[in-house]
């Protein structure tokens, strides 16, 4: 069959992110993907750290120096928050998978709780690490 010319009338598009009013559930859904993608890249840092440890004192020295620097600590701090946020988001999805907390009030509070909980846990863990040092 010969290819037909594309119709010139504008085809209706399905609505996407920019159409909707932002809600907590939507924002946390987007955050879950973004934090997941960041963690995906972050595993390379874990691999570099472990391979450096296996390579000897010189290689480990460079990696330990980086993670001990201001930039390195910032990366680790962000990494902690991203990991905890994705973890709490995952637990929220588990609740929803079991059909729990899906009504309007609860789903909004579960979503807010993901952000509040991840920030609180991150600050607590770093405060504890600095105090116990």
């Amino acid at each position: 069959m010969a290819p037909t010319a594309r119709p010139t009338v504008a085809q209706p598009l399905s609505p996407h992110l920019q159409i909707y009013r932002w809600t907590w559930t939507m924002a946390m859904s987007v955050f879950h993907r973004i934090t997941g993608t960041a963690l995906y890249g972050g595993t390379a840092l874990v691999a570099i750290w472990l391979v450096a440890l296996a390579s000897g004192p010189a290689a480990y020295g460079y990696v330990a120096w980086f993670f001990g620097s201001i930039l390195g600590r910032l990366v680790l701090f962000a990494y902690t928050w991203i990991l905890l946020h994705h973890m709490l988001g995952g637990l929220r999805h588990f609740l929803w998978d079991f059909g729990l907390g899906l009504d309007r009030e609860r789903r909004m509070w579960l979503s807010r709780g993901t952000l509040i909980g991840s920030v609180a846990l991150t600050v607590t863990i770093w405060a504890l690490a600095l105090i116990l040092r």
Partner: protein
Amino acid sequence: MADNRQNTNVSIRTPRARVQGLGPSGHGAGHWWLQRLTAAANAPLMVAFVVIIALMAGRSYPEAVALMSHPLVALILILAVISVTLHMRLGMQVIIEDYVHDKGLRIAALFANNFYAVIVAVACLYAILRVGLSRLA
């Protein structure tokens, strides 16, 4: 709409038999299930991982090697690497399938996703085993 279904009168093969084995039949929920299974495993493993990283901070090289050589630490890290790399590979696959529409690019991205996950997993496991077993030699 034109009826373009195959004429089943000329063959004894039923419509179901013709599609059997095509597409995701038989393992449709496998991806979803493994994503949840590894998520459940990741939760406690990542809590342990954060503790191990916190214990590692500020250690000299011999001290770091000594901690990594502890069987419990090495075992937790091995389990974490396996569960995390499986989980991240599945997650990135969904993202690629959602956003990369060009067929060639999508196949390339799915290949790269698998290579990345396997490289990270093997590099981590090699390093953990090398450090963990080095003291026995």
